[in-house]
């Protein structure tokens, strides 16, 4: 199990290798990585600054991971989420799930990113040609998370 909230970048290949090394029970790994886009709502984005609530962030991510493990038979879960100033093309988040079979790996990865988007206390500030603006939450994120309601 690993939850990491960090300013530094991460290496997806190295994380994948660490997740699978010596684990011959794992039959499949699903990886989701989120990146900073250069456009949002029709405006060019030159930078994005992620703010979070230290303490609560880790607590919420641990709770989300525990819920995924309760629902699916997972060999391992990795969530890395960055904060601070990022630029288009930079990695923001990595969610990886390892399981004996692909269904559990795919479904739990999708569940984790959907829940993370509505529960983990992060906020994005975008820099655009018109100045800085806080990203607004999307209804589509709420409905994506609601699909997983018990």
């Amino acid at each position, binding site marked *: 199990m690993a939850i990491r909230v960090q300013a530094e970048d991460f290496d997806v290949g190295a994380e994948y290798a660490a997740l699978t090394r010596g684990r011959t029970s794992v039959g499949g790994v699903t990886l989701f990585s989120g990146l900073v886009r250069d456009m949002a709502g029709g405006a060019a984005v030159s930078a994005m600054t992620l703010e979070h609530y230290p303490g*609560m962030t880790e607590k919420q991510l641990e709770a989300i991971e525990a819920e995924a493990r309760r629902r699916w038979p997972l060999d391992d879960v990795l969530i890395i*989420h960055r904060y601070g100033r990022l630029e288009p093309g930079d990695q923001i988040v990595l969610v990886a799930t390892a399981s004996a079979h692909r269904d559990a790996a795919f479904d739990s990865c999708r569940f984790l990113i959907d829940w*993370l988007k509505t529960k*983990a206390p*992060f*906020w994005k500030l975008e820099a655009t040609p018109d100045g800085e603006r806080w990203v607004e939450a999307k209804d589509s994120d709420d409905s994506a998370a609601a699909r997983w309601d018990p």
Partner: protein
Amino acid sequence: MKIFYFAWLRTKIGVPSETIDLPAEVKTVGALVDWLKTRSAKHAEALANSKVVKVAVNQEHVPYDHPIEPGDEVALFPPVTGG
């Protein structure tokens, strides 16, 4: 009681956190938000639309009818936008 503000609530109110003496009659999250509005014009403006003011007590998301105690850690923030 310590109150934390994040994202545009922090920039509109102008401070990342403040320490308050919780009035005895303030017993729920909703009552606390209403009371905080009376502290300044900036508070009133930032907290005007309760639909976009979310609250955590002791680092857990809670609804406005959630009870609060003087020792609680309270945070106010807009809907989250991570991932």
